[in-house]
């Protein structure tokens, strides 16, 4: 005889959705999940029982927004969530401060210099000139171009180990 413990369906749906979303990564930075990046803002239950996933793009023009939204939907489908809605929300605006400490380490490990610590003041925006080389940790680096392979990165070069590298912009 099996005893079925009834749990509210809603709580299960949210937990299952959160669990499923742990596998969704940024297509341009596949070492980071959307939770690591801080672009997954909330998973909640809407008024009509729909699971609502709130995401905030790193850049307004980030071309990955559409793909990430689709990947979220695929993950929710796999988790057999029946009713869901992905909401792109621009306010409050995403900042590099929302990157988790683990995310910064993961970025470094794959050769991308993490952004300077705070973007709350406009002065700090451009303080990344002292980007540390993610390979040899030297501070003898120079900016090659303000604009790199994706909208959120700038291109740098290490003057010690000569390795070119991407630096996550402080925004």
């Amino acid at each position, binding site marked *: 005889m099996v005893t079925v413990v009834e749990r509210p369906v809603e709580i299960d749906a949210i937990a299952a959705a959160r669990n499923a979303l742990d596998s969704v990564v940024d297509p341009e930075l596949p070492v980071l999940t959307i939770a690591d990046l801080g672009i997954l803002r909330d998973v909640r239950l809407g008024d009509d029982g729909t699971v609502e996933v709130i995401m905030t*793009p790193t850049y*307004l023009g980030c071309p990955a927004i559409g793909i990430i939204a689709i990947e979220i939907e695929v993950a929710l489908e796999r988790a057999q969530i029946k009713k869901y809605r992905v909401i792109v929300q621009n306010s409050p605006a995403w900042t590099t401060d929302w990157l988790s400490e683990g995310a910064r380490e993961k970025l470094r490990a794959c050769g991308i210099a993490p952004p300077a610590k705070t973007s709350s003041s*406009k002065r700090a925006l451009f303080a990344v000139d002292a980007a540390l080389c993610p390979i040899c940790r030297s501070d003898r680096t120079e900016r090659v171009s303000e604009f790199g*392979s994706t909208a959120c990165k700038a291109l740098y070069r290490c003057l010690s180990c000569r390795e070119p590298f991407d630096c996550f912009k402080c925004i």
Partner: protein
Amino acid sequence: MPIDPQVHFGYLLRLADSNLVLGHRLSEWIGRAPVIEEELALANIALDLIGQARALYAHAARIGGGGRDADALAFLRDQIDYRNLLIVENKNRDFAHTIARQFLYSAFAELYWDALTASRDTELAGIAVKAVKECAYHVRHSAEWLIRLGDGTQESNNRAQKAVDELWMYTGEMFESDQIERAVLDAGIGVIAIDLKPAWNETVEPVLMRATLQRPKDGWMMSGGRSGRHTEHLGHMLAEMQFLQRAYPGQQW
């Protein structure tokens, strides 16, 4: 003070239109830029501007789009319905012209977005917080180039000066005021652009000086973009930009 949704919609549309049109102009450089890094930079700036426009169109559509979405607003409106500033629709000429246009506009846009971060329209304020940081990069990048060109060779100096001279008559429109602007100001949503003029001068003048370029005198200024009176350039641009949606309505990637 509550605001008429159509006025609010119209205000968002003019911000969106300027960004989309300039973003499209920059994207026309892809495959033609002088060096690969600059090609990436122009494409990146274009992406930022189009992204800002997309967020604004989506927001505008929710407020007063009458069932139209962001794509419909971008691809299915005619030239006379576009509300962008005339400076951004100017067709691409040489690289100096593109850089000067970017600098004069971005110096304005950065100040404008900064002021909009205090908007009572929280979605607009959120977009502004993002956009002002993106714009800071655009200003710095275009200023660095303008200085390099102006203070470069005789040829690059001539071209940069010619570009600034030709574009100057389009800068007055950025600071014009009208009924829509006053209505959004009263509602705590918008900004009075003329208040930004001193700060704009403080950004622009030192860069022109370092670039050894003459600041043109404020003479007669072109105007009309905000009432749908455009130069001949916009229609040609829209014809190309909107072609696919016009020829194959509803097509999707």
